[in-house]
């Protein structure tokens, strides 16, 4: 599943950084909205729902690009545990990016809320009204959000480690601009 390319392709990098902004915003909006009863609550909810669908669409495009263009190979001298962590984290992040919007959509469906994106534009219900399904999905959405944020913090920590401590070229594979010469 790797390519001899040294960097991800430009569309992949663009999607990565766009999604990074969207997902971080989404997580902050999510924890923020459930902690307030001010009119901000409605504004945040009204951003949360369509943004979730935008992320779902982007991750599906990104997954397709990934399957077509693949990823640059990890440096051969990377220690095995780090290599494993790097690969595993990508699976975890993709799983969260795909599942969180679907769980949110399903959760609203199972509670019989209309899934309004904006104005009269809304999505169909994807699940029947069910308190037990709703509870299961709502808890999953809640706990996975924290897991997602934790995973992102580790991802950021790891890439800074690769850049600042190992300087092994992994950061450059996804960097929006080239910050140094290509690794040998």
């Amino acid at each position, binding site marked *: 599943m790797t390519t001899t390319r040294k960097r991800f392709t430009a569309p992949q990098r663009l999607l990565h950084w766009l999604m990074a902004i969207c997902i971080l915003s989404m*997580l*902050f909006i999510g*924890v*923020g*909205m*459930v*902690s*307030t*009863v*001010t*009119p*901000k*609550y*409605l504004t945040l*909810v009204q951003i949360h729902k369509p943004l979730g669908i935008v992320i779902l669409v982007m991750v599906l495009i990104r997954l397709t690009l990934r399957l077509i263009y693949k990823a640059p190979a990890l440096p051969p001298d990377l220690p095995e545990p780090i290599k494993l962590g790097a690969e595993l984290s990508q699976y975890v992040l993709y799983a969260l990016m795909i599942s969180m919007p679907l769980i949110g959509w399903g959760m609203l469906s199972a*509670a*019989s*809320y*209309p899934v309004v994106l904006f*104005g*009269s534009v*809304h999505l*169909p219900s994807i699940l029947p*009204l069910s*308190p*037990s399904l*709703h*509870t299961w999905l*709502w*808890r999953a959405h809640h706990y996975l959000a924290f897991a997602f*944020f934790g995973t992102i*913090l580790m991802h*950021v*920590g790891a890439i*800074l*480690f690769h*850049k*600042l*401590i*190992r*300087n092994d070229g992994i950061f450059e594979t996804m960097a929006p601009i080239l910050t*140094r010469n290509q690794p040998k």
Partner: protein
Amino acid sequence: MVESSKSPGSFRPGPLLFIASVIAVAAIAFAYTAGWLSPHRLTPKKLVAGLAPPGGPALGHRRNHAKGICFTGTFEANGNGAELSKATVFESGQYPVVGRFNLATADPNAKDAMVRVRGLGISIKTPDGQEWRSAMIDAPIFPVSTPQSFYELLTASGSKDPDAMKKFIGAHPEFLSFLGWAKSAPWTGSYAEERYNSLDSFLFVDGSGTKRTIRWSLIPAAQPETISPEELAKRGPDFLEQEITQRVASAPQKWTLVVTVANPGDPTADPNKAWPPDRHTVEVGTLTVQQIEGEPTGPCLNINFDPTVLPAGIATSDDPFPAARSAAYSRSYNSRTAEASYYPGNTTGGKQ
């Protein structure tokens, strides 16, 4: 910025400290956003906890307006609403309704005669997949002016300090106008004889994009008959539910939906303040309640009558309550649906 390392073996704390601080700053920002660093923030959790009686909430039930009975029926729009709002629900036609008559109490077993405020929740669906939900009450004004004061009211009324209510009223004299209504307004013996008011204002957006601030009410076709609270207290604990069941079984019950348009300068952000009675009103249609169903098996049980579920053409206004209610109702819904096994109706026939 930190220089990139030339020899990975030599330990330099700089980069590690930098990485740790990036993560720490992000985590603190997240915790702040979540309200964990702001114990005074009025959260949905606090607001909903404030509604609970001293013994804790009734598990499996709505955290307020816990006692109620479902109905189904129709909303027949006469087309007049289209001058104020482009919402499909105001185009001439008949749309299906699921609703719930209820009492403003956290106790699902309250005696009907003991609860002053009666309510009606409603969901109207149009064929284009849009939905309008509303939760109205029979009081003409809300007890207080802001969600924060409502929380203070809940805190004061649940307080052990005998002077708590006195202090609350001192700080929120607007509560007296609600008390005046509660003490003097006539009681009726039927959900069908009540007028139900949105209290909160909303925006109606017409086809040209013009926004008007409005409130609405459901005016009963049934003639209200005044009955003293003493007389009502002699009736059974569920007399309202029994009465409406029999009444609807013998004939559908109707309400006219009337929209009142605010004049410039009216108190649109404060549901504690009524608007002058001469404001422009438009009758937009008729609600017909055709069938009553007990809540345990009824279609309203798992519906959250969130007043911010609105079709295109209706939006929230500067009234801060719909947002607060939406946040609190959502929390109540998440809690009670997770406690569904505690809902006595799961063994059917628990009520009545």
